[in-house]
């Protein structure tokens, strides 16, 4: 597994677990949880700087950009115009062309507006962005995203923050078989077995935030997720046995009395 690197748009990543940085108690906890997760990609949001209280610390004072790939998102954007605006702001504030593109369609489910997503992705790709699209578990949309130039597709496992786990393993599996770019299962995992399951299905990586940040002990859960993703990846590469309805004895009959 030493050379089992994830490569996206020519960039190599060590970890197949990517984590968000929201919902933590404080930056110290964020930092510890990210370290425990072993992730080398962390997502961040783009928001107004607090200009009235300048004593507040900055998240990036805690996350060394040499150690982590900072992946800005367009979370909270409900139309193409806003998503494109936030992506441009993220690039202006940051150091790279990477953008985790979200165009949301509904506040209650936070499901992606896939038509808006494709439209925004086209605009941003034309401007030189490397677009990592958060999408639904729809294989046809996934293919369209690849066709317009997305180097990765990030289908959800379940609604963001829901912790419901892999709700539609069959669609995800179809996406993984159909799509020739890396697939990152993004959003909806609740616990370690969900992450392992995603990897066993053949996901190239898993991205999560709430499952770690919202756990009673986020740092312990971050570590659990690290092992789950690793174990799931190993199991996928190892190739599981087929499911059978009846038993097959593991001990030989030969030599019995």
């Amino acid at each position: 597994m030493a050379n089992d690197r994830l490569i996206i748009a020519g960039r190599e990543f060590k970890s197949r677990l990517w984590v968000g940085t929201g919902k933590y108690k404080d930056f110290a906890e964020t930092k510890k949880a990210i370290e425990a997760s072993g992730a080398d990609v962390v997502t961040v949001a783009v928001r107004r700087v607090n200009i009235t209280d300048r004593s507040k610390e900055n998240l990036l004072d805690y996350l060394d950009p040499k150690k982590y790939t900072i992946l800005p998102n367009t979370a909270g954007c409900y139309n193409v115009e806003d998503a494109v605006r936030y992506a441009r702001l993220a690039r202006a504030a940051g150091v790279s062309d990477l953008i985790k593109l979200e165009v949301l369609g509904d506040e209650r489910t936070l499901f992606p507006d896939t038509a808006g997503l494709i439209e925004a992705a086209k605009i941003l790709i034309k401007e030189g962005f490397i677009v990592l699209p958060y999408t639904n578990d729809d294989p046809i949309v996934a293919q369209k995203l690849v066709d317009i130039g997305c180097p990765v597709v990030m289908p959800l496992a379940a609604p963001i923050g829901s912790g419901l786990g892999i709700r539609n393993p069959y669609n995800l599996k179809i996406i993984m078989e159909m799509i020739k770019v890396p697939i990152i299962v993004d959003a909806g995992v609740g616990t370690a077995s969900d992450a392992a399951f995603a990897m066993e299905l053949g996901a190239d990586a898993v991205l999560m935030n709430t499952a770690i940040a919202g756990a009673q002990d986020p740092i312990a859960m971050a570590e659990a997720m690290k092992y789950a993703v690793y174990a799931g990846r190993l199991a996928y590469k190892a190739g599981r046995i087929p499911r059978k309805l009846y038993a097959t004895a593991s001990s030989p009959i030969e030599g019995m009395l």
Partner: protein
Amino acid sequence: MAETIQIQVNGEQRGCRADATVGDLLRELTVKTERVAVELNLEILDRKDFDHRSLKQGDRVEILSFIGGGV
């Protein structure tokens, strides 16, 4: 003493020197220019232009940065 103009910064009205640049405003607010994006009247500025863009009466400035956020 330079005269004062009114501008809007991150949605809030504030006074500022009439000959101030975006860079001056950031220094006055003690905002480090690294890892911030500045939008002046909806135009995203290049960081190297902060000290060359002067502010005018009624300008709308947005200063953004990265915060914790997830999926």
